[in-house]
């Protein structure tokens, strides 16, 4: 939080630019806006920007293409994708391609703030950690974006949890909303929602679809997850995967 990250917001809808600017300015971030890919690229060339929030559909270029382009140019850039087509497929694709976060519209101001704060914390980490942490989990895991992972157990069930990176990028967790046992979750849908001490909600997107078999009672009860615990104890939800083969293709191997 020591730095003051500069945020570039790109969207062809003025109201979206206005609201993002208003919110982020109020929290002390400096914001610059653009309404298409070309002007965004020009800004990126001339100014120092740390975080990019881009709509999935930009005039002339897709948000994902844009993201890949700028990430090639500056791998340290944090890019988040938002969209009015709040479909799960879009979110999953963006996360797989390296987006830091996926922001479905419409979002409340907290839902906008949450990933930005996480990004800020993430940027405050030493470079070596930034790369290492998402892969800190043992092999055999698959990750969706930077925040959640899935591991297939021998009995065919899937263990789902959030990454160490996610953990360090948020404030202390006060409570976690779990899905109901027996309920269904979808890949790219919400796995859990963590509410932190700074009153921000943080959604973790689920890496797999399936029926919820079990939730980690420990974590649920104590709502406190120490960074020291071995990864195997930091799972959140056990599911019976609905379509394992197909969905694993959407994830990145750990």
């Amino acid at each position, binding site marked *: 939080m020591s730095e003051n990250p500069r945020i570039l917001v790109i969207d062809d809808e003025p*109201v979206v630019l206005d*609201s993002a600017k208003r919110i982020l300015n*109020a929290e002390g971030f400096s914001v610059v806006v653009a309404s298409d890919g070309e002007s965004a690229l020009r800004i990126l060339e001339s100014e120092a920007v740390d975080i990019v929030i881009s709509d999935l559909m930009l005039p002339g270029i897709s948000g994902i293409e844009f993201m890949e382009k700028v990430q090639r140019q500056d791998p340290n850039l944090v890019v988040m994708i938002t969209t*009015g*087509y709040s*479909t799960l497929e879009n979110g999953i694709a963006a996360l797989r391609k390296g987006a830091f976060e996926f922001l479905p*519209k*419409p979002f409340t*101001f*907290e839902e906008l703030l949450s990933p930005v704060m996480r990004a800020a914390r993430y940027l405050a980490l030493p470079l070596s950690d930034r790369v290492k942490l998402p892969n800190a989990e043992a092999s055999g895991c698959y990750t969706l974006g930077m925040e959640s992972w899935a591991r297939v157990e021998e009995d065919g069930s899937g263990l789902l949890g959030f990454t160490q990176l996610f953990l360090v990028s948020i404030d202390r967790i006060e409570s976690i909303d779990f899905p109901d046992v027996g309920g269904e979750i979808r890949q790219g849908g919400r796995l859990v929602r963590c509410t932190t001490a700074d009153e921000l909600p943080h959604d973790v997107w689920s890496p797999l679809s399936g029926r919820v078999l079990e939730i980690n009672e420990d974590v649920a009860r104590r709502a406190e997850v120490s960074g020291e615990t071995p990864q195997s104890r930091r799972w959140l939800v056990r599911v019976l995967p609905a379509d394992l083969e197909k969905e694993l293709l959407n994830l990145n191997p750990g």
Partner: protein
Amino acid sequence: MRGRISYKLIAATCAVVIVSVSVFAYFLLSSHQRQLIADVERSANQLSETIKSSTRYDMLLNRPESVHQIISTIGKQEGIEKVRIFNKEGEVILSTDARDIGRLVDKETEECDRCHSADRPLETLPVSERTRIFESAAGVRTFGIINPIYNEPGCSNGGCHAHSEDQKVLGVLDITMPLDAVDRDLRAGQMRLLTFAVLAIVAISLMTYWLVEYIVLKPIGKIVEATQKIAAGDLNHTLEIRTRDEIGKLGESFNVMMGELADAQRQLIQSNKLSSMGRLAAGVAHEINNPLTGVLTYSSFLLKKADEDDELKEDLNVIVRETIRCRDIVKSLLDFSRQSVSEKRPIQVNETIQNAYRIVQNQLAIQKIRVDLQLQEDLPLIEADKNQIQQVLVNLLVNAADATGDDGGVITVRTDVVERPKPDEGHGASDEWVRIRVSDTGCGIPKEQLGKIFDPFFTTKVAKGTGLGLAIAWGIVEKHNGELEVASEVGKGTTFTILLPKADSMAWA
């Protein structure tokens, strides 16, 4: 169109009747005529023989006055024109017409020609050769008959103009009779027959017309009317034709066809409704999400800022809450409109039903609703997307629970197999379908609403749900080439029936 068939039939019948009656009449008339002439012939011959025998004695006794007397008396009878006797030279020696006596008749006249045309005059002649029909001097059609008078032993002995023994024929008796009476009879007969024929033709034609009208044209007219009504849009018209013949069968098939057409149209309409709604939904959803973003971010921001001001907070909370509700509605709209590719695999639907049940189990227990699963064992597999079918079942179960309320009730889920005829392949060929029925003992659905419940956004649950559940369910079932139907009675309950085609026998579990 009706007119043309009638006219054709009547024309055909008339033609047949006219021809047959005419032929019949012709033969009848000819034979009648022949009969009459034969009668005249016979009676003429008899008369001629009678005259011969009654004058013979007087001839033998050479009493010409008596002969003349007899002949005159006979000649005066009605129906006889003239009686003459010729001698063998052709001289008229006796006649009822005095002017004839002494006249010579040429051998070549018709009456003489019969025998004298040969080299030697013929001595005998059959009756039919001895008759002739000619026009008399007065212009009347007349019948004539000659009868040879043969030589007998007594004749050559007589004292008068005795004939020599070697003469065979002494003379000829000639009788002529007018045919006007006969002709009158004939004509009368002809008239009668003609009248009869005409009446017969008319009667038969009319009868044919009425019969055709009643047996064939009336039912056909009904069918024509029905097809016209259908063309005008009224698909619920049924035909009332109950005869057991081919026309009755036509009527029956027609009704069956109409039923299927109405069904197919309903399905098509529903499908079109949903797909155009889907397209509309996707467009609207996307457009709305951006302005919603503005509203939601600012209102949630203000809510945060209204820290101490409780009243303001409350008001802002309403805005935030309702905007989030908008978001949910839009999200379900997008879910509904998404042409998601179903991943179809052979699945055992009984399992999917059990999964769906597990999901809603808790809620049902709270409402004290009992669930009765009557699932047929060894149910054939169906090609389906497990998740989507499950979604449909969960939706139906939730609806059933909502209809039942909190005072308990029973939801029954049954699975079995039904056979339905293949429409394209005629009799005998039929398909096996897996049938799932979800029945509840809830409040039922009024008849007027039954057609609307699968429409998007139709809901009877106030402030709960988006009204898209059944529309989505219907879309899923349709994408699986199945059918989703509902039957309900207010106050008694509702049954939803899902029909899904069996997976090919090549499928593996």
